[in-house]
């Protein structure tokens, strides 16, 4: 159980931050903390792929955007003009459609958020599976360029498609009722509740990933990262493990995309942009590659600062600089730069090298 102690600490931290903001009257921080939480889900998923399986992906914003855009499109596309057609009637009969009114009182008939989210996530997973089979055979530069290319194609498609709102993106996305009374929405009154929804998702994802990396699968992944040929020779089906990890991290990105889109009430093409993908990679790198906690802590901190506008117009430049500095001076990550290891080395004397 020892490995879950930090999770309890995280839970305590999440609750105490909420109470602290309540107490000091700064609950507006919770909005950015909620968003950072969702981004953190993408980052820890990517951390599994990059740090543990050793496969770079410069296209993860693409999976995030597929989740967000599909969910947004399905829940906002008005089917009212098709309401007499057989397929719409059939969908409605099974309770898969939700009727509501928009801001101007116009009747809207669209997919249930649950169904939309499911379709979005399954689609992202399927695309990851199809893309992953050929892509993960590549290594090094080729892998980086192929995933970058995938990300750009996704970006271009969303930017050029009328159904996805072209450069404006999609707005007016309704709330996502997870459970009765638990709704993912950006409305003012639901701020505290949504903060807890986001961080519950983060903790669930962390539990899942921590279990995974401490299992047989995790050891296999580390073997792949260390030396793929050797892992193969040991009887590890490397291709299969890499693919599963890729799909899992894509699904996590898509889930985060779905939630954040409902929370923000919309999504724009910049969410699919190359800079976003690079930013996720940067945050994993700062966290220390094979370090879920590092990725989580650095991801939340830097995203929070960025969302608060702390870096001003130098936002992208800051992440570029972070990438370079970390990779030049601390390729093991900022948190691994700690002196503990070096001190240990010092005290163990020269007997062991």
């Amino acid at each position, binding site marked *: 159980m020892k490995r879950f102690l930090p999770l309890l600490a995280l839970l305590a931290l999440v609750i105490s931050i909420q109470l602290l903001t309540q107490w000091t009257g700064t609950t507006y921080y919770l909005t950015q903390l909620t968003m950072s939480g969702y981004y953190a889900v993408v980052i820890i998923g990517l951390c599994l792929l990059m740090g543990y399986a050793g496969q770079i992906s410069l296209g993860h914003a693409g999976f995030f955007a597929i989740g967000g855009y599909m969910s947004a499109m399905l829940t906002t596309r008005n089917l009212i003009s098709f309401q007499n057609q057989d397929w719409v009637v059939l969908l409605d009969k099974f309770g898969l459609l939700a009727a509501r009114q928009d801001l101007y009182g116009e009747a809207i008939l669209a997919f249930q958020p649950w169904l939309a989210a499911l379709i979005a996530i399954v689609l992202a997973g399927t695309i990851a599976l199809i893309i992953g089979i*050929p892509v993960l055979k590549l290594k090094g530069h080729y892998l980086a360029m192929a995933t970058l290319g995938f990300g750009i194609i996704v970006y271009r498609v969303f930017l050029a498609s009328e159904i996805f709102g072209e450069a404006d993106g999609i707005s007016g996305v309704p709330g996502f009722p997870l459970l009765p009374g638990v709704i993912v929405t950006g409305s003012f009154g639901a701020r505290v509740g949504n903060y807890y929804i986001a961080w519950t998702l983060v903790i669930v994802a962390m539990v899942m990933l921590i279990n995974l990396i401490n299992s047989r699968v995790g050891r296999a992944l580390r073997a792949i990262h260390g030396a793929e040929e050797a892992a193969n020779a040991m009887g590890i089906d490397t291709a299969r493990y890499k693919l599963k990890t890729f799909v899992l991290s894509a699904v996590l990105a898509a889930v985060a995309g779905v939630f954040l889109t409902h929370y923000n009430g919309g999504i724009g093409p910049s969410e699919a942009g190359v800079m976003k993908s690079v930013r996720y990679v940067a945050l994993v790198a700062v966290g220390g590659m094979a370090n879920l906690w590092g990725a989580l802590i650095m991801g939340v901190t830097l995203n929070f600062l960025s969302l608060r506008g702390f870096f001003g117009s130098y936002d992208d430049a800051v992440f570029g600089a972070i*990438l370079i500095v970390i990779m030049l001076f601390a390729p093991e990550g900022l948190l691994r730069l700690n002196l503990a290891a070096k001190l240990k080395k010092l005290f163990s004397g020269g007997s062991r090298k």
Partner: protein
Amino acid sequence: MAALQYVTWQLPMTSELFLQYIFAGLTYGIIYAIVAIGFNIIYNTTGIINFAQGEFVMLGGMIAISLNPLMPLPLAIVLAVLITMMVGALIEIVFIRWLDKPSVLRLIIITIGISILIREAALHIWGEGIRSLPYFIGNEVSSVSILGTRISPQVLWVMGVCTVMVILLSLFFRYTLMGQKMQACAANRTAATLCGINTRNMVTLSFMLSAGIGALAGCVMSPITYTQYDGGTGLAIKGFTVAIMGGLGNSMGAVAAGLLLGLLEAFSVSVLPLAFQDAISISILLVILFVRPHGLFGRRDTAALKEF
């Protein structure tokens, strides 16, 4: 994509329109080839794919545009190329040179970081606006008649300068001592060191050289394609596609592949919306990576042998 905008959806295709497509395709194609050769030069000496390659092209154009009001155009271009070469050398010295056997992943991330920094610096220096150099001869409406179709003289400048660059580069690598040293460094770094070649300096030189040719291409293409702070990324992807198509490290292959991709793109405009043009070349990249990662022209067993 400015040069392609006058190409409208006229069907059936007349022979004149056909030629327009050809010229547009060749113009972009030769530019892609130059970017690809820039990739190749650095890849051959270091094994690095420099993700900031496209930024050199943007930087060359931008610096020349800024210098142009102060001095005659040819001088502005020469200075822009020299400054970009210095930037290239500086990048290598500051970020790459002192790393001890860095992993590929680390180098990828570092060069991506460099490209972001250059782009953001350009954004803060030159703003978001679209700029361009003046036409070298005449202006945007002047044209010359070739094979019964009318094209801008700037198109000829682009093709001419890029062709001369390709020829000079191959002569440089074949016949000058410096070029042969660089080739030796590419073939076997340890052996080159043993022969008394300072391989580290060769790496710096390769960054300067590829920055220089990128900057020159950026200058000649600026009047027709315009220059914007974020123009590098798209070019880098196209250039990389071409470098892979031609077989990584093979510069003659890159020229052929560049022209091929340029033509494919130009003709794709007649069947697909312009917005999907980038998606096409990236799809080509993905397909080639999956099917023939050693390039269209290379053979699998010779892919390991590097050739300028």
